[in-house]
């Protein structure tokens, strides 16, 4: 939708999730959020990390 495109620069995720993303080497801006209103959760980041591991990137 429009808002997602225009505000693409901003990822909404709590600090502990942002830190986890860095720890796991995940680019949080590319993680789809499953939390309220699309907030990125710890589970989303772990899922994304797994995915990256599997595809070997």
């Amino acid at each position, binding site marked *: 939708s429009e808002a997602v495109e225009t*505000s693409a620069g*901003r990822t909404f995720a*709590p*600090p502990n999730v942002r*830190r986890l993303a*860095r720890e796991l080497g995940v680019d949080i801006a590319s993680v789809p959020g499953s*939390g*309220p209103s699309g907030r990125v959760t710890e589970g989303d980041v772990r899922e994304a990390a797994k995915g990256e591991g599997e595809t070997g990137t």
Partner: protein
Amino acid sequence: MVVGDIATGTDVLVIGAGPGGYVAAIRAGQLDLDVTLVEKESYGGTCLNHGCIPSKALITATGVAHEAGNAEGMGIHADPAIDMGGMMEWKDGVVSQLTGGVEKLCKANGVNLVEGRAEFDGENRARVAHGGDGQGSESIEFEHAVVATGSRPIEIPGFEFDGERILSSRDALALESVPDSLVIIGAGYIGMELAGVFAKLGTDVTVVEMLEEALTGYADDLAKPVVDNMEDLGVEIRLGEAASGWEETGDGMSVTTETEDGEEASYACEKALVAVGRQPVTDTLNLEAVGIEPDEGGFLATDDRARTDLEHVFAVGDVAGEPMLAHKGMKEGQVAAEVIAGEPSALDYQAVPAAVFTEPEIGTVGMTETEAEEAGFEPAVGQMPFRASGRALTTGHTDGFVRIVADSESGFLLGGQIVGPEASELIAEVGLAIELGATLEDVAATIHTHPTLSEAVHEAAENALGHAIHTLNR
């Protein structure tokens, strides 16, 4: 005492013990790094010695007296007298308690403290000149350096600080007697905070500001209650006038200003305080020796790990750029230490809050409505005036409001602007909400204690959702 050159080595050399530097040093110590902190003057830097802390102490003391002296409406009759010497002594006591605390905390966390002025002397070496004649100097080899040398007040040509007629904020915070009259050049937050202090001390205060507004950078409706209150205190605020010169007069001095159109005005006063901004201290560090160069403004560019262009050199606090605020520097100090220790830390916060400790206070965090629009959001905005707040009424301070800015589609909070009682404290909740990715609904669903000012944050969120209880919904 060691005289002459000695050489030591350290994992982390931190230069400057202000909020940026001491936090970097303490955190590095906590992470078991060998850390050396060099400070040429006093622990705590500008903030604890000549900035945040002494200014807030004087704001409190003059505020207590002023409030009691103006509370007839509440049935209180008092005619408080302020003894300037006693107030300054109290303020100094607060400062030394805190600076002593910083020193103790450094030691307790294993930080090596070195007194002296440091400058670079190679890619991995600095030289520290100890104060005083014959105290010698020492050479320190380092693996990593953290530059935390802070900032100094900007001088305007013709207004060189002399501590007598032309004061810096540092001088003003250490005056021994109350000036009869004071011209404050610059209506930024430092100038306005001190204008309030001196007005409440009975000084005849005039503020001159080159720009067409006071507290530039803050929205008009945030600045207005502060300016109105200042004018009620008898402060004269002259906008669009640049200070152009000054001269001694028979019994004092006279400051001349000029408008853009060349119109002159002059103001007789006892002293003038120049508060037109601060510049980073990077010119005295011999930065070429280590191999980095400041930008035009004198700042050191850093990435999201607080790292300069050099892998092993970090910069934190005022030297690392705007906003020049203590808590931004502390965060950078913490991250620099953690990055050096190999932790996955980064400066990835959403927002840095800011406060102005005038009457009423201002607190802001994140985006304004306009900034949100510019960033491509369709903002939902909610507001709650303090005059509708039960708690505000019971404190007698009802000027101002809480405003919340959110993304209307997702509801995510983007920013908050508060002017009013305890704005500096109330902004904390909004800041946490923004960091957490909280929505308007999250804030609205959270029970807030009655009667508190924080209920206004809740109400502003409800108002943005269109169903505030204690104010009409727009």
